[in-house]
């Protein structure tokens, strides 16, 4: 992502080696991503959601997420 935007600096932090950081950002599981030391999310998100989370964390309004695909319904049609 840092190669795609000149504004982004991406730092992979070894969580065990820097416990003061891990505590500061309340890291309980990995991967744990912190954006501008404010917003955060845990886990590996799909690309679209990752980008949306970064923009949102940077204070940029993002479009509504894609409509969820319709799955099996428990409703019984007449």
């Amino acid at each position, binding site marked *: *992502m*840092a*190669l*795609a*935007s*000149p*504004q*982004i*600096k*991406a*730092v*992979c*932090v*070894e*969580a*065990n*080696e*820097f416990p*003061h*950081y*891990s505590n500061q*950002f309340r*890291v309980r599981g*990995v*991967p*744990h*991503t*912190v*954006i*501008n*030391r404010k917003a955060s999310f845990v886990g590996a998100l799909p*690309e*679209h959601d990752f*980008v*949306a989370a*970064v*923009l949102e*964390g*940077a204070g*940029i309004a*993002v479009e509504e997420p894609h409509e969820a695909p319709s799955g099996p319904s428990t409703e019984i049609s007449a």
Partner: protein
Amino acid sequence: MALIPESVRQQLEDRFHTVLSGPVRLTLYTRPGSSRLILPAGLGCPTCEDARQMAELLRDAAPEKITLDVVDVSRDAARAEIDEITDVPTIAVASGSDIGRIRFQGLPTGTEFPALIDAVERASRVEHGLSLESVEALAKLTEPTELLVFATPT
């Protein structure tokens, strides 16, 4: 004992020979000579020596493409401040003349080692791998944005 086995060195050399295209600049920020000392938290650097070996391994696998700059933050605090380095060891990966905005803070072993290799290869090929939609969305970023991704070796 070597940190990286000879077989891995050879594999890396062969892989870089076929995969790398453009120049890659690595910068290792370190505090040499403190790996054997027990110092208060934040002062010592138990993994700096291993990080140096790892950075040199990468450079030696493709010395015609990869350059390595070593910055001793205890001697060159000004450089560390300019580059916004707060902790060591940190390995920064840069594409060509770009500043190193892909960084690995701490020793990237285990599952982080392939991520480091991937970063070197992508920087060399200037290949982010994102969709056009994502690139267009990221173009909305007008201010410097920092991503800290916490990971563990296992």
